[in-house]
């Protein structure tokens, strides 16, 4: 199996949402990392045949997906970012309906739906209306519908958005479990969602592929060093003006002493007593996406 994206571009009038994006994927999990507005969803919608690219093409096992039409969509499972459902359907009816539009025969559909309901841990909720499910349950129902056709290509757009940490871990493990024998493309702006399960990471910035590779390759190729230093609390803001700060830690004993530990991205040591640290994916994310990557003070 191979999904080849060749020079894919999508323009919305003057805005270039995806710009000359090329990449080839084979079996495994691919993490598509980028801030909101980087073009991840537009790229995924093109891969799911929901929108037509302005330029470029997508090849599935060497054939253009537009030409393949239904045959390509048969191999596709998609969980959109804003996952919509029919609120008055029970979970079972919802899955059976999706199975029908995915072209599954009734007997196969029943078996698959039953299996997936158990796999995503929603056995007790089978006859509950979709609108009665919690946010996490809906996401799991979403992954179940995406998996119904036993897809060879699974596209998950921000599947962990809005989930609590427990649900997020559970979801991550579930995706890892489902990733065998298929291509999984998972977009997120949360590094930890893909850091440990992705075969390769694709960093997307302003519609372009900024960097790609395994986690180790990306970290090794980070063109900046990571340092940690302890500074008086009152000096924190001046460091923010000078450097990209990955983390600010103010432990209780430090607070009493009026100090904070900063994790700084810098080519040179930011201070004489700065300690060189091993870079992690969050540092990479901050480097490429800067202040827009995280919350206040650039923390991720």
């Amino acid at each position, binding site marked *: 199996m191979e999904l080849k994206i060749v020079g894919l571009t999508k323009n919305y009038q003057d805005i270039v949402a995806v710009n000359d994006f090329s990449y080839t994927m084979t079996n495994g999990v691919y993490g598509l990392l980028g801030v909101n507005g980087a073009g991840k969803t537009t790229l995924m919608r093109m891969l799911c*045949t929901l929108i037509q690219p302005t330029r470029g093409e997508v090849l599935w096992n060497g054939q253009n997906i537009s030409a393949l039409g239904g045959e390509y969509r048969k191999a596709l499972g998609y969980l959109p970012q804003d996952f*919509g459902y*029919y609120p008055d359907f029970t979970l079972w009816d919802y899955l059976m*309906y*999706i199975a029908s539009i995915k072209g599954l025969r009734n007997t196969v559909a029943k078996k698959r739906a039953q299996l997936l309901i158990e796999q995503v841990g929603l056995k007790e909720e089978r006859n509950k209306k979709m609108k009665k499910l919690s946010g996490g349950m809906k996401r799991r129902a979403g992954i179940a519908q995406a998996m119904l056709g036993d897809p060879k290509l699974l596209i998950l757009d921000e599947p962990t958005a809005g989930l609590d940490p427990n649900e997020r871990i559970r979801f991550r493990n579930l995706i890892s479990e489902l990733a065998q024998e298929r291509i999984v493309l998972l977009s997120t702006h949360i590094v930890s969602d893909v850091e440990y399960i992705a075969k390769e990471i694709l960093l997307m910035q302003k519609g372009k592929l900024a960097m790609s590779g395994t986690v180790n390759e990306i970290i090794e190729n980070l063109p900046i060093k990571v340092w940690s230093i302890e500074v008086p609390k009152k000096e924190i803001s001046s460091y923010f003006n000078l450097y990209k700060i990955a983390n600010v830690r103010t432990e209780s004993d430090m607070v009493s002493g009026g100090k904070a530990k900063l994790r700084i991205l810098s080519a040179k040591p930011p201070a004489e007593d700065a300690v060189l640290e091993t870079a992690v994916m969050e540092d990479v994310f901050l480097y490429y996406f800067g202040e827009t990557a995280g919350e206040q003070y650039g923390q991720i």
Partner: protein
Amino acid sequence: MVRYEIKKVFSKKGGKTAILALLLLLAVTCFFATDVVYVNEKGIEETGYAAVSKLRHEINEWEGYLDEDKLRQAIEENIRIEQTPEAQSKDWHMNNIAYSWKQGFSRIRDLLNYSFASGFREYDYYRADSLKPEDAPRFYENRIRLLKEWLEKDETKYMFSEAEKAYLIKQYEELETPFYYDYMEGFVNLLEYSPTIIMITVLIIGYVVAGIFANEFIYKADPVFFSSYYGRNKAVAAKIKAGFNIYTIIYWIILLLYSTIVLMYLGTDGWNSPIQADMSGWKCFYNIKMWQAYLLTVSGGYVGGLFMCFLAMYVSARTRSSVLAVMAPFVLIFIPSFISNIDSPVINKILGLLPDRLLQVNEQLKYFDLYQLGGHVTGAVPILFIVYGTAALLLVPAMYIAYRKKQ
């Protein structure tokens, strides 16, 4: 797929409420449609099932061909009753007693009023009271004579071409006479209230099916739908089939219930009488029987309603908005009534071909809407069936293409 599409519609509270409302309105319509008044010998009005039996009994005493003898008999009986103190009295209660003696032939009396009117467009409720038995032979020929006189007047100059006038006269002359006089309250009431139940049904089903396409977008379920194997072909077709099935099944169930209730209550007598045998159809140029008029009315309602529902679905597919889609049948039904007051032959010709007319074919049968196509003159009814039947068929590929291309 179709089953789930239908389930989607009726799993919503709005869908269930709409069906309940439809059943409720059906009950109300049946209540009014089965309302028959019988005036007893004391001049007191009676209603209910007993009144139906009594009225039928009264009318059945006059049953038979409405030939010269029967008409003469009706005129004589009318004269006799009119000379009684009860009819002469200024007390309305006494007049009611006199009316109770006329009930059996009151429909003949109504027809006499039309036949012996001073003009084609005139009506005098008391005209029958001034007739003599020897007037009876002119009953049927008056109908044709009045039409001819009217068509010669200036007011019809711009209304009809010569061919259309000739067509009207031919239709009038071809009407089979004498009529068979019979109790026919069941079919008269059935026809009278059929536009009400048809419009209610079409509007409510229009509301129900309006969301079939738009809901995918409203629920944000469109990405999963369109990225599925059948998302751009069979699943779209399933939505169209679901809309068609919902409309067809509900429409015919409601109309079947309506017809059964009304006819079981009031009786099926008079089903084979010409529509001209009732005063409301006296001037009709369509020479058809009561059952044919009803069949045309419900079939017209089906075709017109199908067109409106498909149009609502098409709007839903194009705009992604169920609100705009719901408005389509409302606009088509109510806008013509706002412009119908304009007295212009051209406007009238256009109005005669608007789809709302198909929801009230029993009324359309009374209108003199004529169209000349390649030397052939025809009434609006067959044109309406062909135009909107074809339009409904054309909307199928239109909505299929509009929806499957959505991005």
